[in-house]
């Protein structure tokens, strides 16, 4: 790993962070214009070679693959840009579910659902659906188990077993200490739609002007439409996000810092796409 870091100019001592160092875009590459999926598949091996030869810019493929490919000389038509970004946002099943929910909610509501917009959510719940505000303060919604639970379990199994060295003192010791690992922040994309929401009393306060997707989760069992909005919100929240052209440009120049630029020193793409995974 140290070899990669040095090759890519990672600061190994005092100095600026990698994420704020300007990136040198690839250069001297012949332009390829892509207007169809088939053309894209044929172009990818070429792009893989170009990335391998000039890997310093490769991290930008994670931030916006369409814009990054254009810097590697592979430009996509507007339709293909939309196709690629839409395809990469979710695995196929989730993508289909999102499309279904967005379409049905738009039809029912007469406008696009905006489940990640707190003000829109509050209006939707309290004004349109006329639900009474619940006392959700200090309540925590349920989240689906992390997909890396097996990994965590394996690591947890390696912790030292209790030793209980001072059982005779346990009843006497006035102060007890507990040691654990701080839980990871639970992202809204992992809200558990299958878990029942607890029955909460009405809030003593007036209906709030904004609601987070986590707060609306407590209303999902009261109204099927609310449940649909929350589900759409979890899907949207789990989508891969890509930088806008302006943010992309600022990231290249170092004006804008992102964690990916800070952490990923290079990226190499395989010359053939993988098929759908089970």
């Amino acid at each position, binding site marked *: 790993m140290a070899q990669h870091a040095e090759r890519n100019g990672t600061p190994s001592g005092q100095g600026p962070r990698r994420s704020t160092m300007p990136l040198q875009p690839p250069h001297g590459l012949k332009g390829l214009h892509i207007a169809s999926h088939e053309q894209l598949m044929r172009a990818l091996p070429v792009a893989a070679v170009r990335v391998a030869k000039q890997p310093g810019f490769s991290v930008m493929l994670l931030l916006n693959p369409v814009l990054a490919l254009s810097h590697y000389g592979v430009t996509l038509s507007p339709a293909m840009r939309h196709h690629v970004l839409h395809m990469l946002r979710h695995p196929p099943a989730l993508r289909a579910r999102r499309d279904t929910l967005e379409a049905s909610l738009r039809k029912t509501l007469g406008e696009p659902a905006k489940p990640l917009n707190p003000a829109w959510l509050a209006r939707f719940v309290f004004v349109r659906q006329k639900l009474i505000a619940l006392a959700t303060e200090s309540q925590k919604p349920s989240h689906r188990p992390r997909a890396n639970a097996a990994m965590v379990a394996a690591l947890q199994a390696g912790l*030292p077993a*209790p030793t209980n060295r001072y059982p005779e003192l346990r009843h006497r010791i006035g102060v007890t200490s507990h040691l654990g690992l701080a839980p990871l922040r639970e992202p809204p994309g992992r809200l558990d739609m299958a878990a029942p929401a607890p029955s909460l009393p009405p809030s003593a306060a007036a209906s709030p002007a904004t609601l987070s997707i986590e707060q609306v989760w407590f209303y999902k069992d009261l109204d099927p439409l609310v449940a649909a909005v929350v589900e759409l919100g979890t899907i949207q929240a789990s989508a891969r996000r890509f930088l806008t052209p302006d943010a992309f440009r600022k990231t290249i120049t170092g004006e804008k810092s992102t964690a990916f630029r800070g*952490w990923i020193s290079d990226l190499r793409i395989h010359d053939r*796409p*993988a098929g759908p995974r089970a």
Partner: protein
Amino acid sequence: MSRTTNFDYCVQLSIAAIRAIFHLALKNEALFPHNLGPFPRNYSGQQVSVAVALLDDMDAPADLTFGPDNQIIFALPLRLTIQVPDSPDPSLSTVSLAATVLAPGGLKTWPENGEDRLGVDFVGITAAKVQVPVVTGLPALDAHRFAAALHAKYLALPPHSFAAAGGTLVIYDGTRDATLTPPNAPGNPEITCSIVPQGAKNWLRVVLPIHASVPAAVGFSAYGSITFHREIVPGDRVVSVDMSVEPPAPLNTVVDFDTLHPAKAVVIANLTPLAIGRIAQFGPVKEPWFTDADAKQALAEEAAAYLNGRRFPLYTPHSGDPARPLATPVGFLLPADGVLAIMLNRFDTSVADAAPDAFLGGNDLALATSRRLLDETIAKAIKEKFKGLDSGASEIHTDQGDATLKSLTVTPSDPGAHGEAEGHLWTSGEAEVHIDCWPDPDVTFDGPIFLRLLVTETPDRCDFTVQPVMGEFDAGQSCCDVFVDLIIPVVGWIMLGVVETMIDKVGGELAAKFAEGEAQQVQPIPPVVVGVAELQACLESISVSSQGLMMPGKLRIRREGASFEDLQASGNLPRP
């Protein structure tokens, strides 16, 4: 130099904490009885009794400092009460010497009940090793004390009327003998003493009121006095006056009468030898006596006698499981920093044990684990929990897709390294990310992971959680959840394991899993110093550097065992 030298763990305690434990040890009557004796002692052939009292209060506080050569210098307030048993007036022949002696105690490890204990051992201490800077209570030559002794002697030596050479000599001492005839002169004069320095010597000048009646000497009958001098001889811890040694003129014994009787001179001439003989009957007068050097030597001897063989523990790890013995703790004092460093788990026996660097700062305690062990633990965890990683095939499944972690290294790094102001775990690796219908990218990554310790403290709880934080990630960057899911659990759980192992190995306790979650009840250091104190450690933060992990904290210390006051209240003080 390093925090752990050739050991895997180091616990550092502040001198303030050691002082607190020491004061509690001093309160333990079983370890440090506060009153010993009286013991018989022979000072220059004179039998005396000596009682020793150990003090530690507001007026005479005990203290300690860390000295060189792994020795703790104890400042112990002692009081010696010396009495001469056959003194004519014991109440007046008592000397009470007090001093704060400086006695070195060795920092040592000893086995007790199958466990290793690290503490202070006074075994083999001698008077030569005890310093006595200042002594109070030194006796002064006091004429009144000699007078009191002579008053007692007077009473002990009847008769006070003597017949000789056809006459009668009566010796008075105020009204102490009311049977005398004739009675004492008007005013009832007493035996008086004064001290007369002459050259390098001090002389006790004594005046005895007398009456002499010699009918054959023209009816001589008169009151008078005998004035005599005897040398005050300071000896080894005793001062004595031998009444039988008549000095030459001009300090010779003088008899005089309050009369102008013509036979006065004759009577005096005849009476003087008789008077000297009577004076000799008072015998030697002895008082406890100490020069400054004598007193210091006596205190040093008694302090050594008191301390020799005593010891008290400072750190008493307890395995609780014969199958899992704990490593013998090895102590080092760092005098310049006021730190006691306790080393555990020697991993390199090819070099001499070495004192570590002080890393305690202004804290009560701090725990550190070696870089060697940290590297070993990380490598072992990665190898065992990510089987196939070294051959490039460890599957990770996350919500947003799957990934194959191909390599992972975690390197503890100093503040300043990698452009980070804070110490961190420099985490690097390579992964292949699986994206449906898209070429799988191979990603090479590296970056800092910071460790935080989140502490929640209440009067009866001190909970802490290890929180790994990926540098440059913030809560708004949900796009990075995959990455966080991929790396944080690995590093977080490995670090939790390192911390728990450290607590386990330094002799603290990992109690049963805590029901409220994944936390485990712990005692970061051994919670008891046997018979002395109960310790409650609360870790407050965690820091990473190229030397390993370090966790500072604070201590609550309270007394264990019975104090002098406890025994006094229950009527169980030891009897002489």
